[in-house]
């Protein structure tokens, strides 16, 4: 996964003016709700994540805990929080910070699966998109195919690598590492099919505000956002980030 850990300068298109403490452009309402349909035909569990961007403080606890949990090599990320310094032209303050946690979207219609020549990438019954390390030949077609830059070739294993929702923890009755350690409490993980569960209840409550990344691609992501600014839902225009995490220290 590529990361924009650092502020990059971004120019917003429009913004509304508000009162003294409320004079900054806020996230516009979602046009259409991407609330997932139940996937009853498949496994009992359908794992998903909800990220409340308003609660993200950009501390990268998720990023680093994921690195430690999953032995992610330096320069690669299964998850990361892109952080932007956004120029505001019609607000009382000249700029604002925007944070966007990113990870594999575990799409219901994943573009990475059809391109795999050896059927290493597949979707589990519970919705988690994974890579079979034994089959993977490291051709990186899936890395190219992912519209979210969520995949990379792990240079320690030479296999395609990405977020698994910490399937090894989920299967053990635990939470993904990033969720366990999210300082702002922005990441909620659970089973869409468990109507009484925290995730389903929160998804339901937040339905008018729910968004996904790049909805126009119809990938049907299983990572949902509250507070996702449409300017960041797709490719972010603006100057390239400066503090690129390095590929590998010499």
């Amino acid at each position, binding site marked *: 996964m590529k990361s924009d850990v650092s502020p990059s300068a971004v120019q917003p298109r429009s913004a509304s003016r508000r009162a003294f*403490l409320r004079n900054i452009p806020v996230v516009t309402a979602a046009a259409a709700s991407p609330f997932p349909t139940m996937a009853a035909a498949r496994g009992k569990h359908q794992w998903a994540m909800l990220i409340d961007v308003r609660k993200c403080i950009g501390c990268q606890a998720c990023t680093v805990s994921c690195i430690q949990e999953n032995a992610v090599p330096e320069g690669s990320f299964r998850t990361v929080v892109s952080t932007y310094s956004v120029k505001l032209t019609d607000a009382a303050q000249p700029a*604002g*910070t925007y*944070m966007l946690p990113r990870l594999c979207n575990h799409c219901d219609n994943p573009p990475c699966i059809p391109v795999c020549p050896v059927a290493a990438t597949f979707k589990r019954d519970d919705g988690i998109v994974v890579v079979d*390390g034994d089959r993977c030949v490291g051709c990186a077609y899936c890395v190219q195919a992912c519209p979210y830059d969520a995949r990379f070739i792990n240079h320690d294993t030479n296999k395609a690598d990405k977020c698994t929702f910490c399937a*090894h923890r989920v299967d053990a009755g635990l*939470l993904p590492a990033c969720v*366990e350690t999210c300082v702002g409490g922005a990441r909620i993980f659970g089973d869409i099919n468990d109507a009484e569960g925290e995730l389903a209840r929160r998804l339901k409550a937040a339905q008018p505000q729910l968004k996904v990344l790049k909805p126009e691609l119809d990938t049907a992501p299983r990572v949902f956002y509250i507070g996702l600014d449409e300017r960041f839902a797709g490719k972010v225009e603006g100057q390239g980030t400066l503090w690129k995490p390095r590929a590998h*220290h010499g």
Partner: protein
Amino acid sequence: MKIERREILAAGGLAAFAAGFSQTLGRMVDGFVAAEEPRIAEGRHIHGRSAAPEYTVDPVSGEFTPNPNQQVSYTACLGCTTLCGVRVRVDKTTGNIIRVGGNPYSPLSTDPHLPMKTSVKESLIAMSRFQDKGLAGRSTACGRGNAAMDQMNSPFRVLTPLKRVGPRNGGQWQPIPFEQLVKELVEGGDLFGEGHVDGLAALRDLNTPIDAQAPELGPRVNQVAVLSSVNDGREAFSRRFWNKAYGTLNHVGHGSYCGGAYRSGSGALFGDLKGMPHAKPDLENAEFVLFIGTAPGNAGNPFKITGAKLAKGRATGTLDYVVVDPVLNNSHNLASAEHGRWVPIRPGTDGALVMGMMRWMFEHDRVNTAYLAYPNQKAAEAGGEPSHTNASWLVIAQEGHPRQGRFLRGSDVGMAIADADRYKDADPYLVIGPDGQPVSAESVTEAVALQANGLQVLIADKAVLLKTAFELLRDSALAYELPEYSDVCGIPVEVISGLADEFTRHGRKASAVAHGGMMAGNGFYNAYAVVTLNALIGNLNWKGGFVINGGGFRDAGAGPRYDLDGFPGQIKPSGTPLGRNVPYERSAEFARRKAEGKPYPARDAWFPNAPGLGTEWFTGALRGYPYGLKALILWSCNPLYGITGIRPLIEKELADPKKLPLIVSVDPLINESNAFADYIVPDSLMYESWGWAAPWNGVPTKAGTARWPVVEPKAQKAADGQPVGMETFYIALAKAMNLPGFGPEGLADMDGKRLPLERPEDWYLRGGANIAFAGKAPVGDASDEDLTLSGVDRLRPALEATLKPDEWRKVAFVLTRGGRYQPVGEAQDADHPEWQTHRFSKPLWLWNDTVGTSRNTLTGKRFAGCAGWQPPAFFDGTPMRKVYTEDEWPLQLVSYKSALQNSYSIATRITGLHPDNPVVVHPADAAGLGLRTGDEARIQTPGGTARCTVIVHEGVTRGVMAVEHGYGHRELGARAHRIGGQSQPDRPDLRAGINLNDLGLADPTRGGEAVWVDAVSGTSVRQGLPARLLRA
């Protein structure tokens, strides 16, 4: 929905993890294990090198199954000064740390934290998916807290005692046995072939004065000085050795180059300039918070819990906040922009903003005068206020009166006060009584007049004008017009008045707080102004207002189980502290100059209103003012990296053993400072160390965090089998010098029975007993299951050998839970639910006469005694911009805390994530030079030049360049030292970026021989350094 256990097994989950547990490295498969290792997850290998889970919890039944190869231990983090309670997951077969999370019992990591009675097993289940417990009970470690574990296996660790080879700072070392280290340090000798060096035994001269002509300096033992960093839970042990047993007065921390200006300003309001009490917004219940020069959720202490509560408050809409800072940071979040706003400000002008707000509040009747009119705590509480101020107290305001600026006291108006008590505590402060005449402030039972309105009293038959503290503060606020304040700080008048309006619209559920942004050339007064805002709305001790820390549980006190405080033969150090933070007027120099008819200027600056000052130590000691040092101990501190402007002033002299004969460091790493040491003694690191820590602030309930060696310390073992570390080093020094308070009879229980202090366990386990038994009732007993699951069973032999039978399971109870914590529900007072339980009951000092009557030692002029606007200045009061004009130095540099990096986390995974610190430049400032993001540039200040990369965006005040702290290292891996025949790894990437402190200024009004510090607080100036930007 119901899931049968069988179904999960069918999915491969539990079966697979059973396989995972059998592996030795704590990782799943691939690369670590043989090919025949059982496959997982539907027979397919999908988990890469992910770690085997530490335990499993059946999501239906909640059944808990530990992973026998791993241990989850609750201890403390040292990734920053917050010292959060964390859970450390250890691979038992290798001793390696797999990952770190939060401790669910700790209020620094969890909101709300678990009750102590929860068993360790239940606490682990509480973080699982079972019933979604892990979401509600989430216990976290931050990015740095997750990365800090990398230091445990760092190739840059010092693991054996080192002795320098060749000159100081030469980067070459020889490992020496611990016993040789102790012998050489105690006995001295020709240790380096450079001539004789006095050992610590000879330097422990408790009788001979440093200077017979200046006996107030104290005995020569004061020429051995100890600089530490932060109280990580071990400072009491170090102080026991250096202050109480060895006998030196000089043992200070890093506050004067951290956020000391804020603490000093707060100390002025809270009436204690040495202890510097401070308060924090009650983010849990606040409606509006004004953060000035501090970045909640971006950095600061307590970092996580502040960030978590800020996030919760803005997302749920209960909290609005404004961050005033020259730099935009992660405290702002556009996704909840309707609840948080960034207001850019010019560096070092916070006082102008705040005094402008105060002016507006005075002029619009928005000051809570009803609250301010209570002159003592009893009257305040009777009137429904949980705190009080000295706003109504009378101050002598007669121009030229010898006691001008002092409070009027009972003895001044003829009350019967014994001569010995005059102007001391027994001599009452006075307020205006019902008859218009002064009465004792303590004696009244209700509100009194806030204004003296020109009242005069006769003192020694002379009419003397009086003013109240309230009037003096108002005068100060009215000294400038709102547009003038606006011109100074660059914040429009309507924003200043808007802030004042908003701040005063929430009753007591608003507060204002500051921190590192106060480290400017007027930091003390800026900080005093910010905290005084709180007094004007009366929010102290209110739920949702400005609240004080719940405090810790004391380990090193006199009981209740062991006396870790005093001991026979204890020394009471005396003399003048090296930082000259005492009145110059009590020195022999003053007496001499006064006799010569010119008491001012002194030779240099003194700081009577400051705490111990590391900022002044190096330049003071190396120039012999007030005296030189014979030995300097650097314990886990890095002043050469941290003190703005110090390096160019001292690096040559510090390398010269003739100027400072002995430098000893106790540290697990080689940093920019101890690279100059003669000896480095390895210290324990992170999760292998002991300590009883307490939250610094921001936790309204009582809390004590236990740090204990959850893994075996890596440092070399001494001949007696104990790993070398700070404690074993000092115990060995004490033994070699036969010092009191250590050795076979070093300690005592409360029956006076002498007990040994020969191992760290002797100290920390007994300190644990004091904590476990503190208060009305002791904690419970740890079960065998608690011991096993937490890894505390490794300490069981020591627990049983060191403690009494009724104690050890209680200390184990505290260790298994990583500390002792008051229940979250007790934050507010049961009888007064809108008041905090832990309250500050002494007055808030709107006027501080200690400050207001002390004099600048270079000019003899008195300092102001209340909040007020004054521009950043050098010590003698010359404004910085008078010396370094805007024409010549058009920009200003500020430092800001990184959301990720700290000053010592450089060789961790954080650096891969965020390898560099490009300087933030405003587009308007960059445009003139044609600089664009990513370009190389040069920064010049009067103190130095540095090459940097720039990042150009609007997230900085125009005219300001912002430097993120934690980069520009020369050590900590940035230079490969040679130890014995071995060279450390070469990591040029760790040198990336710049350190603003290398560009700091010397004070031209102090002969350019000292660093620029705030004249009252003595704290280093890193905000608002005059600068220019040039093309590379």
